[in-house]
Structures are given as structure tokens and as C-alpha cells.
């Protein structure tokens, strides 16, 4: 398959994720949509890496996976903290980080 197919597919997945971030309100689903966007970026990186014939884009994608794992840990920690303090699980009502 041509590289452009992969890039267009990755753009489509990125946009689905962006639409989810903009419309959904549960922070859990917003985090899932962020994962979608990061994965779309990974797909584009690997497609370009194949196009150029070297593995450097794959290293970049590997680092993105690491960063995504860190982001998930912190995000889920914040959601668990919100739940324990009985705050509403809704991103629209979250407008301060303090207590």
C-alpha cells in the first residue's frame, strides 16, 4: 500500500479522537480519545519511517508510547482523586486543580 493511504487513515483516526475530546464530558473517555490521537500520530510516524526506509521514526513512536503511558498514569490518578473527594466526574465542572 502507498504511504499516503496510511497517512490519510491516521488523519481520520486523529480527527475521531479530536471530536471525542471536544464533545465527551467524562474525563475517562477524554483520556481514551487522547490515546486515539497519540496512536494516530504513531501510525503516521511509522508510515513515514517506512517511506524513508530507516527506523528512526519507529524510535520516535516508541518514545510516544512511553509518554502516553506516563500521561495515562497521572490522568487516572487525578480521576481517582476526584472520585475520592466526591467531586463530579465531569470535565466541564472541573475548573480548578486545588482541593
Amino acid at each position, binding site marked *: *500500500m502507498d504511504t499516503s493511504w496510511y497517512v490519510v487513515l491516521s488523519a481520520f*483516526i486523529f480527527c475521531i*479522537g*479530536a*471530536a471525542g475530546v471536544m*464533545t465527551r464530558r467524562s474525563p475517562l473517555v477524554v483520556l*481514551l480519545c487522547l490515546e486515539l490521537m497519540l496512536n494516530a500520530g504513531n501510525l503516521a510516524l511509522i508510515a513515514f519511517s517506512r517511506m524513508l526506509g530507516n*527506523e528512526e521514526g519507529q524510535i520516535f513512536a516508541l518514545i510516544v508510547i512511553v509518554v502516553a*503511558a506516563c500521561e495515562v498514569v497521572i490522568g487516572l490518578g487525578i480521576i481517582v482523586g476526584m472520585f475520592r473527594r466526591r467531586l463530579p466526574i465531569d470535565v466541564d465542572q472541573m475548573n480548578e486543580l486545588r482541593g
Partner: protein
Amino acid sequence: MLFEQILFFLAGFGAIAGALGVVMLRNPFFSVLALVTHLIALAVLFLLLRADFLAAAQVVVYAGAVMVLYVFVVAYVGDSDTPLRPADGGLMNAFGPLAALAIFVEITVAVVGSSLSGLGGRGPEVDARYGSPEAIGDLLLTKFLIPFEAASFLLLLAAVAAVVLARKRRGLEDLDAPREATG
């Protein structure tokens, strides 16, 4: 090459269906399961692009470890069966999908209209070593040693931060009590 095309379209539809499922399913638990489908379909695409090690890492790290974390948190927070588009959503509900569509059109036009000559082909022929754990490890420990070490520090920081965020604090039962050691 026909086999490759069939596999691309199957995995591509799987990835798109999984992504749509994440956004459109009401129950967060089903959203997580849709994301697992999406990640496995993406791993197939990675294999088609000859990124063998990354496909394995995707399945083990993402679809395995990270998604288990999500499932635990969804089970802990409970089934907040939220409505997909709340009535008081305002402008964001109407313009969110439109803005996403605009981004898609923009990226597609930018990619198709660009003069990158490599976009029309499959890329150069590569040997069997391309994308193998050996090649990735070689690059990580020579040319990309500093990003590798930075990633390990980032993981350490995230682990410490998760412990700090999740530890038991005194005064949590009584929410009105002053908390001196927050954070």
C-alpha cells in the same frame, strides 16, 4: 500484494470502527474495550509497515498493561452511564465534530497536495533486519541514548507521582478539615 491490500483494508476498518466505538459508546467500560480492538488493529497495520517490535510493544504495553489500568479505574469509579450529548452542551456539541471534519479535510489536502515524492510508493525495499528488536535496540543504545535515558526518567517520575496521587491522606473523611500536606 493483493494479500497486503486486503489486510490493510481489514485492519483499517477495524481501527476506524474501534475509534468510533470509543467516541460513541455510552458506557466507559465498552469504550475501553473498543480501544483495545482499535489498538490490536493498529498493531496489524504496524506489522504491514514492517515495524515488528513496535507491533509487539503495542499489544503488550498498550492493549495489555495500560488498558488493564483503565479497566480498574472504570470499575473503581463506577458505571457513570453519561449521556452522549448532554442537552446543555452548548456550542461545543455542534461545532466539535465540524471542527474535527475540518481538520481531517485540511490534513488530507495538505498530504495529498504536498510534493513529497515518497508518498506515492511503498518505500524502498528493506531487509529482514528492518524493525526487528535488534535494530531498534541498536539505535536506542547508540544514536538515541539520551531520549532513551530521558524516557526512563520520565517513567520513574510518573511512578513516583502515581504513588503520591494515590496515597491515603489524613483528613479525607472530613472534607472540611484543613489539610496542611496536600499534593
